[in-house]
C-alpha cells in the first residue's frame, strides 16, 4: 500500500460513511484511491490532513478490498479531529504494517477471544477472517467487556455471530443499566461461563492494557500455554517501519515485529502492560 519508492507517503482515501458505534467511538468507512489489502491484525497509519496520523488496526474484513473500515475512539488530539470529519472528506493511509493474527495456525482449533472496549475493532476483523474458514475451526468464542451498555460497540455483530454455526458470544459490562440482561463484571469473569478444551485451544486478547494484563493472567491460571495466548500490543507506533523508535518494547519494534505477539515472546520484556 505504501507507494513504491516512498515509505513515508500516504495514499488518499475517501471517507464514504461515518458510523457512530458509541458516544466515544466511530467507524470510518474509507475507499482508498489505490488498491489496498491487509492481513487481519495488521495495522495502518491513518491521517487527518495537516493534523497528524495514528495507528489503527482495520475493523473490516481482510477479504474485502474495495473499502476499509477503521474504528476510532476519541481519546486524543488526532482522534478528536477524526471524529469531526464528515463523509466526502479525505484521509491518508500508510501501510499495512506489522504482523497480524496467524489465522493459519488457528485452523483445527478452538479460538477463545477476549475483547475489551475499542479492542473489539481488530477482533471484528479477525472474526470475519475466522468466519471465512469456519469449516476448518473447532469453535470460536467471543468474550467482550465494556464499561456500560452504551459503550458496547458493534451491537448487530453479536446476534449475527450467534447465528453462525460454531460461534458463541458473551458480553459483560462494568456498570449495567435497567435494560441490561447480560453479565456484569470484568471481562475475565466470562471465562467462567465456558469450558475450554485446553489441548486444542488458542486465546486472543485485545483491549486496554489493564484488561490485557488480567486477561492474560486468567488465561494462564486456566492452563493456557504461553505460546497459545495471542496479544495485540498497543504502543506508540508512529512510523510503522521499524525506524522511528517510538514503539520499542525491549528489543522489539511493536510496529514491525508485532503488533500481535504470543505471550511467550514478550513475557520477559519490560513494561508490556504500560
Amino acid at each position, binding site marked *: 500500500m*505504501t507507494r513504491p*519508492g*516512498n*515509505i*513515508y*507517503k*500516504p495514499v*488518499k482515501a475517501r471517507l464514504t460513511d461515518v458510523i457512530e458505534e458509541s458516544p466515544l467511538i466511530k467507524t470510518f468507512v474509507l475507499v482508498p484511491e489505490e488498491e489496498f489489502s491487509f492481513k487481519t491484525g495488521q495495522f495502518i497509519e491513518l*491521517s*487527518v*490532513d*495537516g*493534523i*497528524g*496520523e*495514528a495507528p489503527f488496526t482495520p475493523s473490516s474484513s481482510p477479504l474485502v478490498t474495495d473499502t476499509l473500515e477503521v474504528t476510532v*475512539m476519541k*481519546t*486524543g488530539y*488526532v*482522534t478528536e479531529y477524526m471524529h469531526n470529519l464528515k463523509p466526502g472528506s479525505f484521509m*491518508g493511509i500508510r501501510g499495512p504494517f506489522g504482523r497480524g493474527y496467524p489465522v493459519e495456525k488457528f485452523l483445527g482449533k478452538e479460538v477463545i477471544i477476549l475483547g475489551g472496549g475499542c479492542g473489539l475493532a481488530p477482533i471484528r476483523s479477525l472474526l470475519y477472517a475466522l468466519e471465512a474458514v469456519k469449516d476448518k475451526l473447532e469453535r470460536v468464542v467471543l468474550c467482550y467487556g465494556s464499561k456500560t451498555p452504551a459503550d458496547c460497540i458493534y451491537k448487530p455483530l453479536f446476534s449475527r455471530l450467534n447465528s453462525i454455526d460454531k460461534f458463541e458470544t458473551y458480553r459483560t459490562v462494568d456498570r449495567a443499566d435497567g435494560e441490561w440482561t447480560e453479565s456484569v463484571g470484568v471481562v475475565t469473569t466470562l471465562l467462567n461461563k465456558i469450558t475450554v478444551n485446553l489441548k486444542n485451544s488458542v486465546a486472543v486478547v485485545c483491549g*486496554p*492494557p489493564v484488561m490485557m494484563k488480567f486477561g492474560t493472567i486468567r488465561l494462564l491460571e486456566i492452563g493456557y500455554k504461553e505460546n497459545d495466548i495471542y496479544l495485540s500490543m*498497543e*504502543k*506508540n507506533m*508512529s*512510523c510503522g*517501519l*521499524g*525506524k*522511528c*523508535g*517510538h*514503539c*520499542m*518494547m*525491549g*528489543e522489539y*519494534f511493536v510496529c*514491525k515485529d508485532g503488533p500481535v505477539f504470543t505471550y511467550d515472546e514478550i513475557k520477559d520484556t*519490560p*513494561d508490556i502492560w*504500560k
Partner: protein
Amino acid sequence: MKYFSINKEDWDRTLEQLMSSYLIFATVKNEFGIDYEELTAETIADISYNIPKPATPLKNFFLPVKENVTSDRDYIRKRIIIGVPNCDIEALKLLDEIYFDNDFPDIFYREKRENTVIISSDCFGIQEHCHCTSYGVKPWSESGADLAVVKKEGKIILRVISSRGNEFLSQLSLVNPLNDNKTVAEIEQEQLNTENLLKEKNSALPDYKSTGRLVNGAAEAVWKKYSSTCVSCGACTTICPTCTCFLLIDKEGFEKVKQLDACQYPGFARVAGGEDPLGELHRRFRNRYMCKYVWKPVKFSSIACTGCGRCIEACIGKINKNELFMELAG
C-alpha cells in the same frame, strides 16, 4: 590494502577542481575544536587531517534534523566528506542497517548515501572522552568508508576501502599508487600507537559485552542517581552518531516532515490512552542505555555505541556514562 599518494599541493588543487561537480565538506579547526564545514577554494588549505574528532556526528549528512519526506526531491548534488573518524563510520553501518532495510528502504537516505564519497581520517591522537576501542572499534577505517586519508610529510596518502573509493580515485590524474612499504609501515605504527593510547586510557572501562550485562542488571537506584542532573534536553541523543529516532509531522496536503526526536523527551512513548512506559525521567534515562547496549545488539549487528564520547561532552548535567559503567563494574 591499496595505498595511493598525491602531493599535498596537487591534492588541494584537485579538490578545487572537484568543486565544479561535488559539494565538499571537511573537518576544519574552529574555536571549539574541529567540525565539518563546506569548503570553498579559500578554505581547502584549512582542512584538519588525522585529528579527532568533529564536534558533530556524520549522521547529520544523511539524516537531517528536519526533512520533508513526501514532497518531490531536489536534485541531489554529489558530495565528498573528508575527515570522518572511524567511530562515525562504524555508526554509519548501523544507520545503513536501519535505513537500507529490505522491508522498508528509505529512498531519501539511500540517495544521499549513493551520492556521497566518504573519506575517513585515521585518528592520530585521542581526545579526553574517546573510547572507541572499548567497544571493538579501531581508530582507523578498514571498511564502511570509501577511502581513508593520512597527511604525511607534504603528501596525502589515500587508502582504498570500497569500490566506490577505487572508482573515485581512478578519476584523479595526479594520484599514484604508493609503492613505499616504509610509509605504510609508519602509518600502521601510528594507528597502533593511537589504539594503545585508547586502550591504556580506558583500561578500567568494561567492554561492550560486559557493558550490556551490567546495564541490564543495574538497579533502579543507579538510574535515579545518574539521571538526577538530567534535564531531558536530548543533547546526548542529538549528538550521538547512532541515535536516529524521529517523529513524522503532518503538513497540509498529506505531506510529512521527518524530524529528529529523542527518547529523552517527555511523552516520547506515550500512547493515546495516556499510558507512558517512559513517563518518569529515570526510565527515559535508562531507556537510552538499554537501547544502545542491550536491545540494539539483539536486532542489529552491533551495539549502538561506538565510543565517540560526544554524549559526555554534550551533557549540560555533566553526566558521564563511563563513570556509570565503572560504578556498575565495581
